[in-house]
């Protein structure tokens, strides 16, 4: 069975670093956001006290900002140096396009058995949402995080109330990101019955030709037609890589679901 490349090495590493820095940020920020939950104080102490947890939080933030910046740098390189304008529009672009709306409504129709499954291309509408959610989150959470990290500097040219807003946004947006990733993204990417327990493509980088044809028929047909498919054929992932991907993915999913359980516990036990 032939394997088709979907993510290159840099993108796979980017995702792993993103994953763990995100988990680290969630875990170290959680006690503050849910400070009245029963587990909060214990978690803060397990993390080495709030001061140390705060240092870890800033460390993970730097890592995440680093990996995000590298990704943006890579995009800029593709755009301006390699003149690859395909990332701006078209089937290889992450930019939302009319076909995403059509595919989404077709998908809903399929949920209700009122139509065939949409013929997705390289990126689906929910994948694009997840992707841009990271951009939105990086600017909103990262920006407010910097405000809170260096208030004495920003207060030189910003009014004091901005820090009240920054603290609120930082917490609420983080809650949105964390709860979204650990439920919706986990389900869409890994836990749904046809992927359960996980999709290892983000770790191995490739899918089988059968899977590609079945899940993204438009991309498959397009690549067959223009001959790109042959250039995307790669060796099947080595078993060790698949195993590693499963272990790393399992750790992340378990940790994420654990964090989500803590949030649910905090929200429901709160009067």
């Amino acid at each position, binding site marked *: 069975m032939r394997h088709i490349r979907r993510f290159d090495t840099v993108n796979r590493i980017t995702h792993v670093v993103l994953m763990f820095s995100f988990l680290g940020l969630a875990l170290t920020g959680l006690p503050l956001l849910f400070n009245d939950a029963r587990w909060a104080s214990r978690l*803060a102490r397990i993390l080495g006290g709030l001061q140390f947890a705060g240092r870890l939080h800033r460390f993970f933030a730097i890592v995440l900002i680093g990996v995000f910046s590298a990704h943006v740098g890579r995009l800029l390189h593709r755009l301006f140096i390699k003149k690859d304008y395909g990332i701006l529009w078209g089937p290889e672009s992450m930019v939302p396009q009319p076909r995403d709306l059509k595919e989404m409504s077709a998908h*809903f129709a399929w949920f209700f058995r009122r139509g065939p*499954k949409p013929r997705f291309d390289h990126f689906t509408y929910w994948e694009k949402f997840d992707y841009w959610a990271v951009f939105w989150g990086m600017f909103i959470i990262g920006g407010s995080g910097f405000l809170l990290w260096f*208030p*004495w500097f920003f207060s030189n040219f910003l009014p*004091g*109330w901005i820090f*009240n807003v920054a603290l609120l946004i930082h917490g609420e947006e983080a809650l949105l990101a964390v709860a*979204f990733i650990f439920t919706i993204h986990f389900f869409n990417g890994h836990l*749904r019955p046809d992927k359960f327990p996980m999709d290892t493509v983000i770790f191995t980088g490739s899918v089988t030709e059968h899977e590609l044809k079945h899940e993204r028929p438009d991309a498959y047909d397009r690549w067959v037609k223009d001959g790109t498919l042959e250039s995307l054929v790669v060796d099947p992932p080595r078993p060790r890589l698949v195993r590693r991907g499963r272990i790393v993915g399992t750790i992340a999913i378990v940790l994420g679901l654990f964090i989500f359980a803590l949030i649910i516990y905090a929200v429901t036990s709160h009067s």
Partner: protein
Amino acid sequence: MSARVTVVRLAVFASLIRLTTVVFAVPVVAPSPGNDDCLACHDDATATASNGRSIAVAAKVFADSIHGPMACTDCHADLAHAEFPHADTLSPVNCSGCHADPVAAYGKSVHAEARSAGNTSAARCVDCHGMHDIRSSQDKTSPTYPLNLPNMCGKCHGDAKIIKTGGIKVGDVFAKYHDSIHGKALEKSGLLVSAKCTDCHGNHEIRRKSDPQSGVFRANSPATCGKCHGGIQALYASGIHGSKLAEGDPRVPVCADCHTAHEIRRIDGDAWKLDVLAECGSCHAQSLKTYRDTFHGQVTSLGFTRVASCSDCHRAHDVYPKADSRSSVSDAQRAATCGKCHPAASESFAGYDPHADKHDAERNPPLYWTARFMQLLLAGVFVFFGLHTSLWFQRLLRKDPPPPSKKAGE
């Protein structure tokens, strides 16, 4: 022992017979017995009355007591002219003959009140001062010497049985005092100036907490504590709490509300810093609630104290309303107050609202509208994707029915 009792009884009988002869004879005033006469019998550690009660008085102990130079009959006045051996039961000694003022003061005390109500465990003079071994309260061996005093009061107020039978309402004061900053200063550090029971409660005239004349009556608390903490008393009196107290407002906190009465702790300990937040919050509930929404409040909520709590910004004793220019959170002083922890704090930095309320559109409009927006965003995302995910899930779970035509589904 029974032989001794018989002897005593015979002696009493004999003296009664002699008494009848004396009554009908020419009255003769018997000479007052000297201390040596008394000690001839009583300076015997095994001496007991007919009911077995010890009647021993060690000559040395009495001689060393503050009453050493006095005659036994100065106190036991009913024996001044008695025949010997004297009657088993003597009139109670009345200390007021010499100590009129302390006894009069004692008469107004809760101890005297309990005793006249029939409570025999309530303290009398001798219970605190001793009997034949009374020493000056300056004497280091006296139970009323400052370093010994708490243990002396603790004989009853630390004894579970007496607390119960004596109907003592607040029972755990001895243990609490023991661990308090005052108790440790006195007992561990040996500081005579540290507050002991009598400094707050008085000595002879100990009154109930509910008695307006008591040193521990709520409204008297600042004056009582101010006997030692004069500087703090002045700050408190000038602040809003002290001024309101002077106006007779019963709601304001007094010293003991924050510091407690007996288990007063060091104010630099974590436990105290965290507990006092709840104390301020017992009246300033809304302020505590909004404080909890800020980083400062979140950190203290988790049990860490490296952030500002109420008194760090508002001060502890000289608290003024924000509009008062003396207030540490007034417009004029706020930046300097923030600067205590945030050295680079500017006027703009101090524009941060440490009690911002996201539900209050008037006080914090940008925060209010941001909160509304975030609420909508979160609700929107989760409603949409919750629906999307559930529908997808049910579609994947249910197997397709046998296809009527080749076109449908996957």
